[in-house]
């Protein structure tokens, strides 16, 4: 199967980022329709669509929207998670830069369905171009009565604000994002069942819906064409519906964002991205740095779907898909992954704060030729102490890639430890190596 462009259909048309251009392509028909529907009917369409969160966890979107109290007693908030920080992922950036009105319309529909008073788009600080495109679009929408008081004469009021982050991967975790939005260090908060769900008590202790950029962006299509139509996309998979944008990078000829229907094969995705560059396929990290790495045999025949990718040994994740060629040293790649998590751990809980540093220390020892026998078991032990014992998902996400790589590429780890050097020796592989020892990254 080839590309299926739904969200990205007009992403190459600069006019689509203007209100006139957006409306010329049918924009805001969905909001008009939604404002004439019962709130519950909107949520039911989203339920029928089978839409699952595109930020990484794949949680059914309608359950969040439905969880917001129907008897409104105070303010309700919406948050858009645009803190895209998962290594390998760059889809939200493109969506915001090229289709800002889709996000605004989607959030307004979600806001109406959940009686939201205000929405906040939390954008990672580096994405200034994306924020500028959204700023322009939001200002235009206000001027046209599509945001603010009495939207399209419906009596519904909704304000939409932009809030920028300042450099922290952890702020993509939803409760840490709320801390950050409220003006604190980006550390996660206690979660259900210890405290109520965010839909009951989220940001500023008010009912809150939080979704990823891509998730909200699907809403206009679901309202326009119906949930059943949306659910017909990806119907060949167990429980993944609609389209998904994959950010393909690494050793491919045409890196970029590719939107596919669920049920497409991973190898088809590779072909869309122009196939391998510089050597044969060796490994793939299909859903962002947090998901387990796959070898070429696992990739062959893997079908893209939440359950299907799990069967193939990995995850859909955020859709940050990195293909690696035969010159890649997996040990070095995993060392760099460990460095990322050690740098980004927020330091709140011991298993992750200490564990990610230990993983990096052991990986650094192996990578620099000083690996000891027993290091593989030590890595596994540390991983199992982090996984499931950390305060938030970052700890798990730090452990999975290391544990996963040992499972699939154990021979490379063993070789490196025994010989003090990588099993991969070529000019191309040398180009990837960090020559000097680790430099601390802020």
């Amino acid at each position, binding site marked *: 199967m080839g590309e299926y462009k739904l969200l990205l259909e007009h992403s190459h048309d600069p006019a689509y980022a203007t209100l006139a251009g957006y409306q010329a392509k049918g924009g805001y028909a969905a909001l008009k329709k939604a404002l004439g529907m019962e709130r519950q009917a909107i949520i039911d369409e989203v339920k029928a669509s089978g839409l699952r969160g595109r930020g990484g966890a794949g949680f059914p979107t309608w359950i969040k929207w439905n969880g917001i109290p129907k008897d409104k007693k105070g303010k309700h908030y919406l948050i858009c998670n645009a803190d895209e*920080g998962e*290594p*390998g*992922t*760059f889809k939200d*950036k493109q969506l915001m830069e090229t289709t800002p009105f889709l996000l605004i319309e989607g959030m307004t529909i979600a806001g109406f369905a959940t009686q939201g008073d205000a929405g906040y788009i939390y954008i990672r*600080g*580096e*994405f*200034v*171009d994306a*924020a*500028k495109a959204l*700023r*322009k679009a*939001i*200002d235009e929408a*206000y001027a046209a009565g599509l945001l603010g008081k009495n939207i399209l004469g419906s009596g519904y009021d909704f304000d939409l*604000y*932009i*809030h*920028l*982050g*300042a*450099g*922290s*991967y952890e702020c993509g975790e939803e409760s840490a994002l709320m801390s*950050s*939005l*409220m*003006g*604190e*260090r*980006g550390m996660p908060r206690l979660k259900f069942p210890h405290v109520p769900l965010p839909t009951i008590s989220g940001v*500023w202790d008010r009912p809150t819906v939080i979704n990823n950029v891509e998730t909200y962006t699907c809403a206009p299509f679901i309202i326009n064409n119906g949930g059943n139509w949306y659910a017909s996309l990806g119907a060949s998979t167990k429980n993944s519906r609609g389209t998904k944008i994959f*950010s393909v*990078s*690494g050793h491919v000829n045409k*890196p*970029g964002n590719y939107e596919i229907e669920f049920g497409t094969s991973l190898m088809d995705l590779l072909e869309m991205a122009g196939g391998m560059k510089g050597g044969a396929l060796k490994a793939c*990290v299909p859903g962002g*740095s947090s998901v387990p790495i796959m070898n070429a045999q696992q990739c062959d025949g893997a079908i893209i779907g939440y359950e299907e990718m799990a069967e193939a040994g990995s995850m859909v994740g955020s859709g*940050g898909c*990195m293909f690696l060629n035969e010159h*890649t040293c997996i040990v070095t*790649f995993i060392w*760099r*992954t460990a460095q*990322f998590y050690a*740098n*980004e751990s*927020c330091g709140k809980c011991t298993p992750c704060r200490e564990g990610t540093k230990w993983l990096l220390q052991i990986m650094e020892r192996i990578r620099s030729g000083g690996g000891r026998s027993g290091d593989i078991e030590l890595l596994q032990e540390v991983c199992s102490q982090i996984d499931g014992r950390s305060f938030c998902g970052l700890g798990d996400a730090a452990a999975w890639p290391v544990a996963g790589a040992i499972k699939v590429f154990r021979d490379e780890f063993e070789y490196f430890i025994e010989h003090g050097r990588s099993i991969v020796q070529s000019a191309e592989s040398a*180009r*990837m190596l*960090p*020559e000097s020892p680790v*430099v*601390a*990254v*802020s």
Partner: protein
Amino acid sequence: MSELLQLGSVNQRPQPPKREELTLRFSDAAVKELDALRTHYPEEKACVLPGLWIAQREYGGFLDGEALAEVAYRLDRSYAEVEGVATFYSMYNTAHRPGRHKIEVCTCLSCHVNGAYRVWDYLKSKLGVGHGETTADGEFMLEEVECLDACDRAPVIQVGDQYYGPVDDAYMDRLLDELRASPVNTVVQMADSIVAVQVTGPEREAAHR
């Protein structure tokens, strides 16, 4: 009487800096922007991050103690709290003066496998500085950073609010020359852009009138 009781039994949070201790440097426009931002949130505390961005612009790209104290004073938070927040986030320059241009080199996964460490080596030797250091002439600060989420252009670097990639040595030579010749301080310009996108067009206009 126990010492705690003498101090007052309630656990009082540290107080914000007092006005007379400060030299306030926010411009009129900055004050108005901060006022506009206050209307965006149900609690003033939410303005700490945007307030720090304003300060990073107003103080020439570096958040020293005075800058943090001014943010604390204007938002009625303690100095310790604002400092704690500012130092958590990597884009606030609290540790080193960044120079006129902060060159952020991504060496994360996709960039790593596309030769980012060679770009990093080249820049270190060409500029004669390492991670977190600024050249003696105050032009460039070098920083090794995590994924900038533009991996389709790996290896990627960011200077101010602009992304560049894929880059190589020749590309970097050209870019450094251009940056040197440009009159702009991209660190300050980026902070300004980040403030500008958070206030509405009309709010921005009113502030800079």
